[in-house]
C-alpha cells in the first residue's frame, strides 16, 4: 500500500504508539482488500459495547497514548447512574461501565451513547467518506444518506477515528456500490415492524448488495433503521438499494449499474411468517414478565405513539424503552415521558439491550418488536416473544401475549 509521508511518520510512531497500532490494523485490512492507499474521513461512529474486548482494546489505546483525530459518536453501554440508583447492576458491572466511560472519554470521543446517530447527531453528507460501525448505522449512511463507509467493526472504526483515514476499497468506490441481488418483495409491508422481518431474510437473500422492489415509494426512517439492523443480524450487509426510494437507485438499471442481477430472490408473506414462528420468536399465547423496546434505539415518533397508546392506562408488566438522551430529553419537554411513567413504564437513555443491567430477567420471557433484541441477549438467558408494536403494547397492558 502506498502511504503519504505523513502516514509513514505515523507508522513509525511519530504520533505515538497508539496511532501507529491503529494504522497497522488498518493497513492489514487494506491489504486484505487490495486497497492502493489511505483516504481521509470526516466523520466516524464507534460501536462501543462495554464488552470485555471493547474495554480491552479501548484501554490499550489509551495506554498507548491514542487520541481521536475525528471525534466519533459512540454506541450505548448502560446508563450507569440510572441502573446504579435502581440497584440493577453489581459493583463489578458498574466498575466495568465506569472504566469504559473513562477510556472513551480519554480517547476524546463524543459520548452520545446512541446506536442511531444517523437520525440526528451524526448525519453525513452524500459522498462523504466516513467510518461507521454498528449494524443499522453502516447501511443507513450508505443507502439512505449516500455517504461512503465500509462495514467497519467497532475496533476498525475506532482505529479510523484515531488515524483520520481509511483504506480505499469496497463501498468507497463507485463500481462496488451497485446492487447484485434483485429482491422482489411480494409480502405486504403493513408497518415498520414488517421491515424487521424482511431484514431477517439474510439467509435467503445471500451475500451482496440487495436491490429491493415492491416496497412502494416511501420508507420511514424507522423502516430503514429496522431493515438495516436485521439485515446485519441475519447476515452482513453494508448497503442496499430500494428502487425509487434510495438516492443511488432512481431506477432498476441505475441500482444495478446497467448489469444483470446475479440472482433473483422473491420474499413472500409465508417467508416472513415462517421466520417469525420457527426461527426467531418464542411461541406466543403465554404470560410475559416484561416488555423491552429500542434495539436499535426508539425514535421520538415511536415514543409519541407509545405515549398516545398508554395515556391514562396502567401497565401490567415493566415496560422499558431504550432511546437516546436527546430523545428522552425531548420526550420530557413534550410531556410524553410523564405519560409513560404514569402508566408504569420508563424511557432509559444511553442503554443497549445486550448489557448486564437486564440480568434480573434471566430465564424470564419478554415481548419486543425487534428480532435483534431477541438474538443477542439470548446468550444472557433472556427469552422473547416477537410481535408488532401494537401487539407488544397490548401484551404489556395485559401481562399476556397473543
Amino acid at each position, binding site marked *: 500500500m502506498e502511504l503519504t509521508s505523513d502516514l509513514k511518520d505515523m507508522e513509525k510512531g511519530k504520533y505515538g504508539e497508539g496511532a501507529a497500532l491503529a494504522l497497522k*490494523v488498518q493497513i*492489514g*485490512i487494506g491489504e*486484505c*482488500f487490495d486497497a492502493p492507499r489511505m483516504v481521509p474521513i470526516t466523520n466516524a461512529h464507534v*460501536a*462501543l*459495547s462495554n*464488552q*470485555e*474486548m*471493547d474495554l*480491552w*482494546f479501548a484501554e490499550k489505546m489509551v495506554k498507548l497514548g491514542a487520541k481521536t483525530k475525528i471525534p466519533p459518536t459512540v*454506541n450505548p453501554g448502560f446508563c450507569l447512574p440510572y441502573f446504579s440508583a435502581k440497584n440493577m447492576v453489581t459493583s463489578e458491572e458498574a466498575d466495568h461501565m465506569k472504566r469504559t466511560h473513562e477510556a472513551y472519554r480519554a480517547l476524546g470521543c463524543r459520548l452520545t451513547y446512541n446506536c442511531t446517530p444517523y437520525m440526528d447527531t451524526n448525519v453525513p453528507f452524500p459522498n462523504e467518506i466516513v467510518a461507521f*460501525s*454498528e*449494524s443499522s448505522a*453502516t447501511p443507513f449512511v450508505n443507502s439512505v444518506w449516500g455517504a461512503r463507509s*465500509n*462495514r*467497519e*467493526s*467497532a*475496533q*476498525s*472504526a475506532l*482505529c479510523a477515528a484515531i488515524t483520520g483515514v481509511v483504506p480505499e476499497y*469496497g463501498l468507497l468506490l463507485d463500481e462496488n456500490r451497485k446492487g447484485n441481488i434483485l429482491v422482489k418483495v411480494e409480502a405486504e409491508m403493513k408497518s415498520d415492524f414488517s421491515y424487521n422481518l424482511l431484514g431477517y431474510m*439474510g*439467509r435467503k437473500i445471500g*451475500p451482496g448488495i440487495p436491490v429491493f422492489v415492491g416496497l412502494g415509494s416511501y420508507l420511514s426512517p424507522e423502516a430503514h433503521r429496522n431493515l438495516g439492523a436485521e439485515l*446485519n*443480524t*441475519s*447476515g*452482513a450487509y*453494508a448497503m442496499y438499494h430500494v428502487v425509487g426510494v434510495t438516492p443511488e437507485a432512481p431506477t432498476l438499471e441505475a441500482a444495478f449499474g446497467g448489469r444483470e442481477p446475479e440472482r433473483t430472490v422473491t420474499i413472500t408473506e409465508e417467508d416472513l411468517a415462517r421466520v417469525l414462528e*420457527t*426461527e*426467531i420468536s418464542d411461541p406466543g399465547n403465554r404470560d410475559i414478565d416484561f416488555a423491552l423496546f429500542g434495539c436499535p434505539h426508539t425514535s421520538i415518533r415511536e415514543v409519541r405513539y407509545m405515549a398516545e397508546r398508554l395515556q391514562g392506562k396502567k401497565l401490567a408488566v415493566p415496560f422499558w424503552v431504550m432511546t437516546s438522551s436527546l430523545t428522552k430529553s425531548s420526550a420530557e419537554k413534550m410531556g410524553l415521558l410523564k405519560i409513560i411513567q404514569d402508566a408504569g413504564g420508563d424511557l432509559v437513555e444511553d442503554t443497549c439491550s*445486550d448489557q448486564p443491567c437486564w440480568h434480573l430477567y434471566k430465564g424470564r420471557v419478554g415481548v419486543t418488536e425487534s428480532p435483534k433484541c431477541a*438474538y*443477542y441477549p*439470548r*446468550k444472557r438467558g433472556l427469552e422473547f416473544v416477537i410481535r408488532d408494536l401494537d401487539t407488544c403494547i397490548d401484551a404489556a397492558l395485559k401481562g399476556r401475549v397473543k
Partner: protein
Amino acid sequence: MSGKVFSCHKISEGVGEGEVIISRDEIMFYLVRPETGEVLEKAHDIEGKSVAKKAIVFPGGKGSSVVQSDGLFQLMLQHNQPAAMIIQYPETVLVAGAIIMEIPMVDKVDPEFYKVVKNGDRVKVDANAGTITILN
C-alpha cells in the same frame, strides 16, 4: 489427500493447525459458548458443534459490528479460539477481529480444496506462505 497443498490468500497472518469443521452458514462468534466453543445459534448449520481450536471452513462472518470481536475474544480467554479461519467472503468486521486477535485467516482458496476437504480432516493453514496443507 494426505500432504496435498492448496494455494490461498492471506488475510490475517500466522500459522495454525487443527481439525476441519465445515459450516455452510456464516458465523457470529458471539453466539458461541466460550468454555466449549459450541455454536448456540438456533437453526445454524453447525448448531451444537464446537469450533474450539478447529480450522473452520465457512463463508464468512455475519451480524453485529460490536460483539463479533467479543465472541472471538471470549474464546481466546478460554484458549478455545479457532486455530485458523478459511473463508470465501471477507468482510471488515471479522477481518479486523482476526488481525487484532492474531488468528490466521485466509480466503481465495484453490477451488479444488472445497471439493476434497471434509469434516475431521487435519489441516495446516500457513497464511504467511499462502498455503493450506491437508495432513491426514
